[in-house]
């Protein structure tokens, strides 16, 4: 598939978008505020619409689609600021499981919404290296170490743990197991997060889904899909922040006329509209790159950097354009602002992304020098 084809969504993709829009359109502000980071009926609703299986094969009850369609759903989740771990479980974990070639039985539960996976030690946040140590054990292996930031909560049914090192492995463990402890906390946007501590945690052979290059490969693919989905989530969040701000500027009167008539505010709104379009472009590119390219990192780093900047710029501007009202928890805009902060962190921030790109640029400059020296 070419990027041009990618930009032309299929009819199926359009149907998914429409159904997602209808679904999230029915989520009320009060329901969101009451859901305390997770609503079981919402998760089940997503399952009914096929969200959790968007990337899973037919055989597992999935839709067998790709990063583009997962991005449509992540966008909808951002637009409605859903706190549920859609990306973590249905994109990150599912992609790793699927790439590792696990059996249909495991995937089926995830697709049906009855199993909710928390990736540990990979995927999200981007760029947080948290190596776990692996010791051989008679029945399989024993894992130790601490992962300070995972998307884990009371809803989590399974851990999907990646232990890097000389003998990398990807293992599945139930949420309650000997040697695992969780310190739960909350994301700035209300999502459930936690620190996972492993202390000589025994993993049986049957729980080890992949080893070595296969494990690394599964994790790499999962991380690329994660970046693409988070980018789309950010664009959905940005778009809704713009909608809220547009409404506010048109409705709110000051000095006897609507705020939307003040040129300084109009131009600032125009500027963040540009940011939104650039972010949308980068999100399109990220889902194409994750799906198609063998080494998407150089493109994904640019996408992360650019989208984090857009998230920062749009978040700050929309609060400012809301004036004092933007500072209140009562207005939805602050919730979108916090989600944008959280997404920037999960994407590794603009500074982190540019740091990687800068290092790559330096390497490119070196490589060109060598190439010329060799001529």
């Amino acid at each position, binding site marked *: 598939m070419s990027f041009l084809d990618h930009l032309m969504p299929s009819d199926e993709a359009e149907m998914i978008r429409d159904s997602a829009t209808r679904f999230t359109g029915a989520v009320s502000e009060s329901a969101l505020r009451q859901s305390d980071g997770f609503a079981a009926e919402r998760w089940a609703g997503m399952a009914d619409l096929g969200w959790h299986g968007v990337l899973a094969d037919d055989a597992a009850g999935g839709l067998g689609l790709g990063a583009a369609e997962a991005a449509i759903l992540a966008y909808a989740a951002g637009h409605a600021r859903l706190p549920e771990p859609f990306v973590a479980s249905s994109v990150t974990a599912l992609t790793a499981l699927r790439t590792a070639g696990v059996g249909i039985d495991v995937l089926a539960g995830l697709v049906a919404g009855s199993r909710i996976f928390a990736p540990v030690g990979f995927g999200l*946040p*981007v*760029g*947080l*290296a948290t190596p776990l140590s692996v010791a051989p054990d008679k029945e399989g292996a024993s894992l130790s170490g*601490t992962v*300070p*930031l995972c998307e884990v909560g009371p809803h989590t049914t399974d851990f999907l743990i990646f232990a890097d090192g000389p003998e990398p492995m990807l293992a599945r463990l139930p949420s309650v197991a000997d040697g695992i402890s969780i*310190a*739960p*906390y*909350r*994301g*700035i946007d209300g999502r459930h*997060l*936690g*620190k996972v501590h492993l202390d000589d945690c025994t993993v049986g052979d049957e729980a080890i889904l992949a080893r070595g290059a296969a494990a690394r490969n599964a994790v790499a693919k999962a991380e690329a899909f994660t970046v693409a989905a988070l980018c789309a989530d950010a664009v959905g969040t940005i778009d809704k922040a713009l909608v809220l701000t547009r409404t506010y500027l048109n409705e*709110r*009167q*000051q*000095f006897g006329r609507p705020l939307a008539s*003040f040129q*300084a*505010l109009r131009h600032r709104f125009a500027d963040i509209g540009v940011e939104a379009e650039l972010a949308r472009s980068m999100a399109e590119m990220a889902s194409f790159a994750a799906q198609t390219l063998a080494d998407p990192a150089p493109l994904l780093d640019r996408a992360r950097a650019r989208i984090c900047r857009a998230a*920062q710029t749009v978040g*700050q501007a929309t*609060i*400012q354009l809301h*004036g*004092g009202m*933007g*500072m*209140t*928890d*009562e207005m939805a805009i*602050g919730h979108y*602002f*916090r989600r944008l*902060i*959280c997404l*920037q*962190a*999960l994407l*590794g*921030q*603009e*500074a*982190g992304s*540019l*740091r990687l790109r*800068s290092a790559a640029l330096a390497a490119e400059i070196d490589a060109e020098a060598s190439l010329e020296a060799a001529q």
Partner: protein
Amino acid sequence: MVKNLEYRQPRDDVWDHIDLLLDDSLRAFRGEVRQFLRTAVPDETRARLDMGYSATKSEVVAFLKKLSAKGWVAPAWPVEYGGTGWSQLQRFVYTIELGNNAAPSVPPFGTAMVGPVLYTFGNQDQKDLYLPRILSGEDFWCQGFSEPGSGSDLASLKTRAEDKGDHYLLNGQKIWTSKAHYADRIFLLARTGEGARKQEGISFFVLDMDTPGIEIKPIISIDMSHSLNEVFFTDVKIPKTGLVGEAGKGWSYAKFLLGNERTGITNIGRCRRQVARLKRIARASHVGDTPLCADQAFLRDLARIEADLTALEITEIRLLSTGRDSAFANVGPSVLKLKSAEIQQALAELMVSALGPFAAGRGPQFVEAVEDVSDLPQVFFDGALAEYLFGRATSIYGGTNEIQREILAKATLDTLQ
């Protein structure tokens, strides 16, 4: 590791280069202030505030007591009302040191806002009753100016105080009332008459917060803290003694008050402390194997803010000390307000950026959860995010950035010289 990140008191023997601009007597004065603050602020309070948390009411009260004993609660007031008689630059240094030493903020509502209005426009009874209680720390005040829908257009206020002969009957609503839930008294603007212009017919009142008919509704702000409120007035009786100055002249008193407010909000001391904090964070925080302080891009960001901060300090000194460049004296407060908001927000943003992925979470549980993860300045996480979030208000309150730019444009562009 965490030890290295803790608050450090400014060292008298290590001068910030900007300090070289001070003369010997100001440096001696600063030493005196530092000496006092070293014991006046408990270490625990200092550490919490330095992390970015707000002071609790009891911390503020305890500190006010120390200040009161020293006579330093309201240095700017005339000596006859309990001021210190310090020069403007002494007050500048004093304010910097409060922020630089992570002292609890002295609530400005009594000292910087209603106090000067009372001793300038109030009657003798009002001065005698209220001023000493501000200086002693007994009375906490709050400000009833803004109303829902008025936004930057303050004079469009609708709260009405009807003259009932022996009292005024107050009905209406105020918003953004900072610390109303802590306050003993409120000063407010209400409409007592009509005029051709909306600025006319407004009066300035003081009122006890326990007067029947006052209801306070918290506003939770985007950092999920409670500092702002809505205040509702339903048939509240204001005694005639609550009117300050002349009826109908409230707008001019409010302008006087807001003019005082704008010069006091540069928060330079706090910014200095945050630059120092960022330097400690840069030492402890790692990107891969490299400490952040070896990242030239981060250092350049910090150096750029530091240069801005130096420029802001000198601009404030210029405003305080010369007063001869009348064009600048007019626009100076707006210059300071705009620039200080930008610097405070840039510092908070850089701090959050330094947190990397750990900017995703917050709350006490979060701090506890990540506290034992090595190589990361965990203790700062939560406070940095709180400061970043609440700090978005610095470009909104006290006249938004847009209002400040309009003031500047009026003063510099509309007058052709």
